[in-house]
């Protein structure tokens, strides 16, 4: 696709500002008709979870998200795409991941964001460890077969 957008990928410990990230893809532009954001947040599992620890593979995390984002930019006519994934210890209600997809029309932005999240779950080198409330030892979250199966619907 010509005029493919250049995705912005960040892997960071600090939080992100959703409004500022939307602004980055829309400021001064009159061709952007749709902006889709997906924010993944740490939930407390009905009070059972004290914190989530996200381990990542520095270098590969950025590279793999970059590859996934580039594929999205190739498959859909996006005007902008931003992916931010946090690592480290996160508390309930904190943000984990942000995808912002901008396009002239809504369908491309919605589908690209959905595609990104499916691939981030099973292909980006991050691992979640749950720390239960009450101070018990943390345990690694097991990958779900459903997440792997979700990739099937994007295969051409």
């Amino acid at each position: 696709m010509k005029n493919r957008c250049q995705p912005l990928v960040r892997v960071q410990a600090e939080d992100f500002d959703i409004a500022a990230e939307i602004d980055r893809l829309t400021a001064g532009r009159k061709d952007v008709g749709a902006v889709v954001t997906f924010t993944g947040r740490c939930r407390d599992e009905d009070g059972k979870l004290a914190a989530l620890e996200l381990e990542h593979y520095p270098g590969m995390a950025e590279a793999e998200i970059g590859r996934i984002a580039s594929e999205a930019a190739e498959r859909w006519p996006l005007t902008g795409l931003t992916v931010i994934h946090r690592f480290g210890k996160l508390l309930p209600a904190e943000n984990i991941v942000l995808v912002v997809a901008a396009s002239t029309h809504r369908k491309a932005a919605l589908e690209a964001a959905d595609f990104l999240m499916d691939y981030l779950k099973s292909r980006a080198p991050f691992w979640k460890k749950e720390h239960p409330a009450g101070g018990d030892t943390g345990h690694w979250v097991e990958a779900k077969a459903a997440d792997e199966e979700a990739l099937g619907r994007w295969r051409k």
Partner: protein
Amino acid sequence: MKLVYFAWVRERIGKETETVTPPGEVETVADLLAWLKARGDGYAVALEHAEVIRVAVDHEHVDHDAKLPADGEVALFPPMTGG
């Protein structure tokens, strides 16, 4: 080659990284996993179900039948749970 481990693979093996020189007959990722598994208790526990271990060579996912690079960084980790 440099090996790096993540999540429960790292915890069970008991180290984050190490440099190894496998014998010549270790040609594929599957060979490497089998060779490592015989190196001690931590490795045996970490790699008990070798088929679930995900592997990356120089920051790219590879299958277990992939040839190992002469040099480079090989990462072993559990299925990912990001997003």
